[in-house]
């Protein structure tokens, strides 16, 4: 799970300022698309592998990160194989995997609160009408509430199964959305209660 990925350690990557990590990540991803080719991708892959090792991530973390994306990567591979060829499909899928793992390096070495600080630092020159604190908090809440929404999803699915509704998308989505919105309401109140303006 994404939020399980923060690794408690004191590596150089943990100590690097979050703004720098986010900036390098954006630059790295851009370069992989600008300088398209196997050589660039291989170099990128090696760089990401080194960073993963440096940040203390183990093989099981890498597998856990890529597992949810397997079906999407497989679909991309099939479509690209059909539209272009297997070599290009392999290239696209490998590039996606490298991008996902590069993002993992950042989430594994950056606490959410540090990421918020990084986003705030990045937004410091934005015009005054830009709600900087709200944007930064919004990003952090997305990370925090992934497991919560997932647990609501499992609750709802089990409740619907108990009623014999195994494959009913509406029966699954409606309570999920309603409960998520209700939760969002209470979270907003809790944030307000903790002096967030």
């Amino acid at each position: 799970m994404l939020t399980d990925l923060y690794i408690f350690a004191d590596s150089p990557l943990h100590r690097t300022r979050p703004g720098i990590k986010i900036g390098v990540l954006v630059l790295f991803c851009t370069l992989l698309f600008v300088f398209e080719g196997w050589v660039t991708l291989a170099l990128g892959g090696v760089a990401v592998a080194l960073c993963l090792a440096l940040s203390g991530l183990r093989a099981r973390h890498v597998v856990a990160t890529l597992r949810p994306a397997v079906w999407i990567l497989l679909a991309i591979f099939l479509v690209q194989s059909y539209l272009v060829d297997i070599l290009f499909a392999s290239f696209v899928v490998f590039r996606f995997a490298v991008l996902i793992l590069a993002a993992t390096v950042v989430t594994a070495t950056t606490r959410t609160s540090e990421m918020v600080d990084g986003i705030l630092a990045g937004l410091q020159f934005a015009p005054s009408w830009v709600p900087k604190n709200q944007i930064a908090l919004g990003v952090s809440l997305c990370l925090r509430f992934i497991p919560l929404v997932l647990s609501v999803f499992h609750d709802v699915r089990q409740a619907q199964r108990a009623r014999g509704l195994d494959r009913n998308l509406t029966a699954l989505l409606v309570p999920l959305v309603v409960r998520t919105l209700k939760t969002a309401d209470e979270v907003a109140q809790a944030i307000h209660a903790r002096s967030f303006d």
Partner: protein
Amino acid sequence: MNIEFADVSVKKGEVTVLQDISIRLSERRIGVIGRNGSGKSTFARLFNGIEVPTSGKMLLDGVPERKNLRRHVGFVFQNPDNQIVYPIVEEDLAFGLKNLKLSRNETEDRIADAMRRLGIDHLRNRLTHQLSGGEKQMIALVGVLVMRPRMIVFDEPTTLLDLWNKQKFMATINDLPQHVVVVSHDLELLRGFDRILHIEAGRIVADGNPVSVLDNYIASSQC
């Protein structure tokens, strides 16, 4: 410290949730009881300004207050999952303090002090969604305590807890030096309180010591 509700009413759309509440509260342990939908959660949310009166005023120590109520009154929700904002305990506890713009040293001192006092220092670097229900409720409480409010309001804080965690949590509440308001259906928890308010249909229908109010409440439920 005293909080006063002066002719406070709350309307949501066409529905009047609370009507003409006038009451002054200065006791250290106040319990709030009432049926589901009676308006007690809305009443509790008025204390720290999460809910705002449609008419009437809230007074803190005799002075009308609106925005600053939350600086003095903390709020612990029924479901700690909805109160914990960050994925790591330590950074969640720092959230409120950051909003108060406290220095890093002051923030760390307050967190360490509050966690030590409740005996949960070992949770400091844990992921919040991996904690048990009891641990999460404790973290939610510490998140409020570090802000050093003068009063803490609890909205059905033990509903999701097992018997052991419930007793531990209530013992913690009883040891708090702050003024405490607890909304609860668990009447036994409120027996030792100084004052009990019984709310029905948006009005305070009984107000007094626990023995008389709770016994009448139980008797009315058996009619």
